[in-house]
């Protein structure tokens, strides 16, 4: 046994090596490169890039960047509101479909349709629907005598319009996970409740929700991370405007890197954003762990 130990360690190390190599190449090196870029100014002259060390100058400037600060605020608000609505709607729809005996396959297909569409198609559909002059939403409002609204160009409505698109797009994702969760719950518990003539709301609050809690938390974490990375709806519908009403973190990074061509500052903004998202993930995982430790 003692003689086999080094070879076992070698085998373990060898079998893990490809994974470690992939991790280093695909995750660690890009992050290290980003970190190096964030403390440098990258300029171009004579067709070559020139990196000059600027220390923490870029990182310090992130805190003073009013547009980025608006992006952080908007992203947090967007994530909180859209994910809350999606969780509520997705869970309710899943509950209804799980209890439907007729046409449940059809309902599932209908509810899942938006998630199958590419973001660019969704952007095009909603851009047409939101159009102030030719859009179907304002045309419907006109039938009822209501005045036309500028859904994406008004500072009061723009973020709500984006949230509506996100809810439409991602509620099916929540629905799918919730439905899977509901269908995996032990049927005997519900049969016992039915024998005891437990009212539906008591069954919901005392049996279904506690049993579904792990699924709910995992879905919440997934959706929150995805919501923090929102980009395509903003890019396609509002470009962060009007003013900074729909500015979000991903869009700020996109503009800094790809429109303004500021690699150094863009890297600094990216690093700060990665840290912010990591904090959200850690908080969510802690919450999940606490809930898991709670007695049933």
């Amino acid at each position, binding site marked *: 046994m003692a003689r086999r130990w080094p070879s076992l360690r070698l085998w373990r190390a060898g079998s893990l090596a490809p994974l470690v190599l992939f991790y280093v190449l695909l995750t660690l090196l890009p992050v290290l490169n980003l970190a190096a870029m964030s403390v440098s100014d990258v300029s171009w002259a004579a067709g070559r890039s020139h990196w000059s060390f600027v220390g923490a100058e870029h990182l310090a400037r992130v805190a003073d960047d009013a547009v980025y600060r608006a992006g952080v605020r908007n992203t947090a608000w967007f994530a909180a509101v859209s994910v809350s609505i999606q969780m509520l709607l997705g869970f309710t729809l899943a509950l209804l479909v799980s209890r439907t005996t007729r046409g449940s396959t059809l309902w599932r297909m209908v509810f899942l349709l938006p998630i199958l569409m590419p973001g660019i198609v969704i952007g095009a559909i909603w851009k047409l629907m939101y159009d102030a002059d*030719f859009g179907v939403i304002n045309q419907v409002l006109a039938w009822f005598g209501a005045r036309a609204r500028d859904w994406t160009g*008004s*500072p009061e409505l723009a973020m709500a319009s984006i949230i509506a698109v996100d809810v439409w797009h991602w509620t099916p994702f929540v629905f799918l996970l919730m439905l899977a969760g509901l269908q995996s719950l032990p049927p005997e518990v519900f049969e016992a409740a039915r024998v005891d003539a437990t009212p539906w709301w008591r069954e919901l609050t005392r049996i279904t929700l506690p049993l579904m809690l792990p699924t709910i938390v995992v879905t919440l974490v997934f959706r929150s991370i995805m919501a923090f990375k929102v980009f395509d709806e903003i890019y396609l519908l509002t470009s962060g405007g*009007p003013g900074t009403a729909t500015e979000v973190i991903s869009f700020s990074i996109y503009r800094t890197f790809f429109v*303004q*061509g500021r690699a150094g500052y863009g890297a600094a903004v990216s690093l700060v954003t990665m840290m912010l998202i990591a904090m959200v993930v850690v908080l969510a995982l802690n919450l999940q762990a606490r809930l898991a430790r709670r007695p049933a």
Partner: protein
Amino acid sequence: MTRPNRSQPQRRRWLLAGAALASGSPLRLWAQTAAQPLRIAVPQAPWYPSFERLTTVFERIHAAKVAFDVSPFTGLLEKTRNAVRSGQSPFDLICINSQFIPEFYAGGFLEPLAKIDPRFKLQPEVIAYDNTLRWDAVRKVFDAKGEVMAVPVNGNIQLLYYRADLYAAKGLKVPRTWDELAANARALHGPDVAGFGLRGNRGFFEASYDFYPLLASFGGDIFRNAAGGDCTVVINSPEALKALQFVQQLAKEAGPAGVGSLTQARLIQLLTGGKLAQAVLVAAAWPQMDDPQRSAVVGKVNVAPLPAGPSGKVVTTLGHWIAAVPKNLPSERKKAALGYLDWFQQKATQQQYRDTGAVPIRQDVLLADPGPDPKYRLLPAVAASSGNTRLMLPVPQAAEIADAMELQLNKVLVGEAQPAAALNQMARDIEALMARAGMKTGRLPDLR
């Protein structure tokens, strides 16, 4: 690449024209280097179909192949940046929009055309476009005596588009000043048709691009003398304030709904949909006006040069495209690219280009009588404007500056900021970023 079908006589005409062009061209570089297709990075722009169609003539007369890589505006910028920064460019020619020319010239990514072949000469009839074809690499500024870096491939500039039928019905005259335009806009404005449209969207050279002709013709500017190396920020001048207040007022009184999200595409949609009486649009939008598939106002839209400001100046912002040769190419590819550019600038080529519906890049072709076809009614306005063109931001930091301007202009138009405060903020932002770039800068005292 799909090609449009053409009738036999038309094809014959094109081939004859092509043969004439081949014999008239001073450079015959292509025949020596035509082993591989010429690869051109082009934008998915309204003028691209004309460019593609014209290039078929080049392919026929030189028995050559041209491969187009077509991308949307922002996508092309990223592709061309990557191409010139890599070991070897995948494109022999890259199209660059006016706003990014300084970035590509100053970065040293492009080969001066005379260095590829000293026999190359830019023909004097090719429009200078505010000297954006020539670059002084030592002073890093555009200069009429600088090296020729590129050939323009599309003469896109701003024009005033107006509904001639509505003008006639109200007995209005084509405006010569912005005040006359505002008066016309008020007269035309109604519940079904808006009087005048300017881009107010915060995007990629949108609100700032449309504000610039007003700013400059009111006597203001962004920098004191950027072309001369003085980047003192003067955007918070009293003249700029008047220009912005004028735009704000006009948008309120006679603009379409949702000024904060007005993009160029939406302005075109409103005009062709019969919901807008006049707008500032680029020349490239023209083919859509008379296209019965896209327009409900075929034959009713006309164009004119932009009006003059109180200073008497007429300024139209450049939105032209140039084609240039990346430095990171083998010399035979550079020569092949230069052969194409030299063919492109010839008079006969440009006449063909005009006939396909594009805006030619030679003044003599713009001024020549093209015939009675109503599609040519755009050309006199372009010819009259070509001496008034100005590059909005002749510095490599153009994208960053425009981004700062877009935000503040959009805030003013949606009512989130006052004009003076927005201009002061723009001046602060632009000064800070120019200082970071190591440029000689400063700014005017804040407006009150």
